[in-house]
C-alpha cells in the first residue's frame, strides 16, 4: 500500500497546494522546472504529494535548525542519509533529475560531483567518530534550484587538525580546506575534495551560474564565478559540523 508521502495527486490538487494555476504547472513541466511523476495515456499529469509539499518548505532553514539544535533527533526520513550507500542512492536520483533539466544538460555533472564530494567528506571524515547523530541531512528542491547538505560531525577544524596541528580556529581551517594542498596521505586519505569544489565553482568557465554557501564552526564562505579571492566570514550562529547550500 502506498503511504501518504508516495501518494500521487492530480494536477488540480498540486496547483491548489502550490497556489499556482494548472497552466503554470504545464509550463513548468515543459521547461523542466517541475516534472510530473507520471503522465497517463490520456495525457493527465500526476504528481507525488511529497514532491509538492517539499516545494512549500524551506530546506535550508530546516537543515540549519537541525545543525543548531543542542540536542537533535534524526531528521525527517525523506532528508536523512544515515550512511554513505543511502547518500549514493539519493545522489544518483538527483543526478538523473538534473539531467532532465534542459539548461543543465551539458553541465549537470559539475553539480552532482560537487554534491558528491561535500557529502562523502561528511562520511569519510566522521566514520566511527560521529559526536551524536550519525549521517547527514540531504535535500534538494529543483524548483528553487537549491541543494542542501548538513552534518553534525566534527567539523573542518577538528578533522584538519589531525594533519595540520597548528590550525587554531575555524576560519583558518576553512581557508586551508578550500585552498591548500593537504598532503596527509596518512593516517587517512584526504585533501582534494573542497579544492575541487572551489575549482568548479570559481575557476572553471561554465554556462550555468553556480553558488555555494559553506559553513563549519563559526566560519563561512561564499563561492561563485565572481569570487576573486576566498573571503571567510564570521557566522552569527556557530555549530560543530558542516552546512552547505548550493544554488543553481
Amino acid at each position, binding site marked *: 500500500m502506498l503511504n501518504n508521502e508516495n501518494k500521487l495527486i492530480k494536477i488540480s490538487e498540486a496547483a491548489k497546494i502550490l497556489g499556482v494555476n494548472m497552466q503554470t504547472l504545464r509550463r513548468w513541466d515543459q521547461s523542466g522546472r517541475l516534472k510530473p511523476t507520471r503522465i497517463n495515456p490520456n495525457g493527465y499529469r500526476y504528481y507525488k504529494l511529497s514532491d509538492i509539499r517539499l516545494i512549500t518548505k524551506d530546506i535550508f532553514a530546516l537543515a540549519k535548525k537541525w545543525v543548531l539544535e543542542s540536542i537533535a533527533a534524526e531528521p525527517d526520513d525523506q532528508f536523512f542519509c544515515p550512511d554513505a550507500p543511502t547518500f*549514493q542512492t539519493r545522489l544518483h536520483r538527483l543526478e538523473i533529475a538534473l539531467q532532465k533539466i534542459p539548461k543543465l544538460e551539458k553541465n549537470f555533472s559539475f553539480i552532482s560531483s560537487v554534491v558528491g564530494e561535500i557529502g*562523502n567528506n561528511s562520511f*569519510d571524515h566522521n566514520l566511527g567518530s560521529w559526536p551524536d547523530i550519525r549521517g547527514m541531512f540531504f535535500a534538494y528542491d529543483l524548483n528553487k534550484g537549491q541543494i542542501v547538505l548538513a552534518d553534525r560531525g566534527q567539523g573542518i577544524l577538528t578533522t584538519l587538525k589531525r594533519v595540520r596541528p597548528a590550525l587554531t580556529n575555524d576560519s583558518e581551517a576553512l581557508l586551508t580546506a578550500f585552498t591548500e594542498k593537504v598532503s596527509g596521505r596518512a593516517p587517512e*586519505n584526504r585533501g*582534494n575534495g573542497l579544492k*575541487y569544489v572551489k575549482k568548479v565553482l570559481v575557476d572553471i568557465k561554465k554556462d550555468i551560474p553556480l553558488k555555494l554557501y559553506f559553513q563549519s564552526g563559526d566560519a563561512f564562505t561564499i563561492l561563485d564565478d565572481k569570487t576573486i579571492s576566498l573571503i571567510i566570514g564570521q557566522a552569527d550562529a556557530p555549530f560543530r559540523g558542516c552546512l552547505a547550500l548550493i544554488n543553481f
Partner: protein
Amino acid sequence: MIIELKKFGNLLISRQLGKEALAALAPRLPKENTEKIIIDFLEVTTFSPSWGDEFLSPLQQKYQNNLFLKNTDNPSVKATIEILEETNQVKFQWE
C-alpha cells in the same frame, strides 16, 4: 588492456567505492609495466576526485608512461583529472 569504467558504474564518487573498484580490478592487472593500459570513461556521467584518487592515482603511479585516458569529455571527468594532476604533481596522457 582497456579498462571500461562504465563497468563499475556511471556515477563514480566516494573513496570507499574507488578503493573497492581498484581491488576488484587488481587480479586482472598486468604484473609488469610493459603493457599499454587504457582507461575508458565512455558513459561515465559523474566523476569525482575522491573516487579518482583511489582508482587512478595508484594506476598512474604503477604504469606511468603506459597509462592512457580515453573519452574524457564529461565536464566532471575533465575537472577531476585536472585537480588530480595539480595535487599529485602528475601528468596524464590521452589515447
